[in-house]
């Protein structure tokens, strides 16, 4: 059998924010929103479930969560029903795995759900648990548990090496919070001014509170199937998974693979592979959702994804080239800075937004978008994951 072409049919989200709901409750809300988005599909026909979540074992005391969620959403998987953990890239990993299974004919219709319940009734535990996400024996023992210090060092090096300014960092937050204004599912619907971002409470200078993604509860879901089935189930334009890559070169801060912390060689490698596999170049991308966990991240991503030259990410965002009407609109639904970041949910939220964009039905629509890209960095910047979607296979 020749490889089948794989499409994303639609997507949904639970409300993201500080939620009084369990991980299973939110997975169900996301699945319902997703099923509602593909009304012709009978959910009984979904034969596989992947659930992307890193913390459901620790913070929800629920391991082997996939069958629990399958029961809760009323499906009986017969091809695959399992959990995926790649921290911040878990959702994207799930979509890549589902694509492979469907392509190979091992599954026909899969739902990929992802998300986290990060707030625990005992709030100290929320921050203690963060330490499980790094090489905790060594990096953790030094107190590098929470990510801001690491990205603060990255930002300082970028400022020193390329002259990036605090205004340029802040511009990312202003843009993404503005993009999130009309996205009812995100964590924040409130614009922030450049002055507010610049003056926000220092977390790890130069990063202030408004340079950082918040801690967020929530889930998202997408449904994938092969091209023939997609044509049966939807009248909307088809959106194909064109090319993917996931690159891991190291796992702890001390073994950083680049020349310095601004040199994201693993991202460049992932981008090269994904562009090759999708048979496109950076100039072909019409809209992108990149991992703005911190403002500095989006600036470096513009460079290492090839949207601008190395070192020019600061001026690129400041001059509006990554905004609506610019060279490439980035984080059109608000990104992590406005939507929040329930780790396993993020890649799926990004995919949902790209599907809406390529089908011409996004809240903030990029006119005529035909090729879209999603990107995650995960952990303490140890892995980069990219998916490229297109209206053509």
């Amino acid at each position, binding site marked *: 059998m020749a490889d089948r072409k794989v499409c994303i049919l639609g997507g949904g989200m639970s409300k993201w924010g500080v939620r009084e709901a369990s991980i299973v409750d939110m997975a169900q809300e996301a699945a319902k929103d997703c099923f509602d988005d593909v009304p012709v599909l009978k959910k009984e026909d979904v034969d596989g479930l992947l659930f992307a979540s890193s913390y459901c074992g620790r913070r929800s005391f629920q391991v082997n969560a996939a069958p629990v969620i399958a029961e809760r959403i009323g499906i009986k998987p017969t091809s695959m029903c399992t959990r995926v953990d790649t921290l911040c890239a878990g959702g994207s990993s799930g979509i890549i795995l589902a694509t492979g299974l469907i392509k190979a004919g091992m599954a026909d219709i899969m739902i990929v759900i992802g998300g986290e319940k990060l707030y625990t009734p005992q709030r100290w535990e929320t921050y203690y648990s963060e330490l499980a996400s790094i090489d905790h*024996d060594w990096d953790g023992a030094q107190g590098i548990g929470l990510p801001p210090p690491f990205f603060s060092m990255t930002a300082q090096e970028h400022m020193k090496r390329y002259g990036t300014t605090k205004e340029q960092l802040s511009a990312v937050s202003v843009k993404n919070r503005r993009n999130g204004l009309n996205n009812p599912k995100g964590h924040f619907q409130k614009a922030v001014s450049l002055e507010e971002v610049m003056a926000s409470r220092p977390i790890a200078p130069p990063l202030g509170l408004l340079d950082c993604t918040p801690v967020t509860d929530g889930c998202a879901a997408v449904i994938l199937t092969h091209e023939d089935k997609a044509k049966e189930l939807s009248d909307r334009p088809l959106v194909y998974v064109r090319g993917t890559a996931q690159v891991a070169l190291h796992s702890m801060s001390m073994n950083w693979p680049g020349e310095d912390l601004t040199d994201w060689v693993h991202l460049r490698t992932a981008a090269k592979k994904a562009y090759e596999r999708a048979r496109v170049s950076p100039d072909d991308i019409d809209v992108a959702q990149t991992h703005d966990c911190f403002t500095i991240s989006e600036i470096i991503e513009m460079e290492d994804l090839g949207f601008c030259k190395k070192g020019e990410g600061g001026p690129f965002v400041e001059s509006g080239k990554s905004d609506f009407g610019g060279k490439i609109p980035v984080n059109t639904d608000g990104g992590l800075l406005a939507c929040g970041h329930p780790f396993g949910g993020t890649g799926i939220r990004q995919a949902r937004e790209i599907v809406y964009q390529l089908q011409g039905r996004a809240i903030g629509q990029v006119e005529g978008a035909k090729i879209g890209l999603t990107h995650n960095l995960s952990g303490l910047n140890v892995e980069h994951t990219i998916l490229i979607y297109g209206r053509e296979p």
Partner: protein
Amino acid sequence: MGFENFGTVSFTTEAKAAEFITYLEQGKVMATRCPKCGVSYFPPKADCPSCLSGEVEWFEVKGKGKLATYTIVNYGPSGFENDAPYILALGEFEGGIQIMSRLSKDIAPSDIKAGMSLVVSSLKRPDGRISYEFKKG
């Protein structure tokens, strides 16, 4: 002894690289080197990640390194509240060894700059726990 007394908060008490702690108690910060493929590792590895051989040699991280970058941590993770603020730094040492650790509180903030000379040394904390830290080189 194992890692139970290592760092501000310990996570792993049993690991094959526990000799690291024995040396640290003697005031030595040690790395491992694989005699088969010649690669050095910090943090030390009891088995070589490159050729997977279990015959590694221990050696002390001596000499002067260079401060690559640093950051001030104002909000520590749970368990580190009493340490904050502290300065985390990345130091580069001979043989391609990089170490992420804290800068000693003895270093005046005005003296800290990227490129400054560092040594890594063992640390006995007032609460009796052990770790390592950077001092001026």
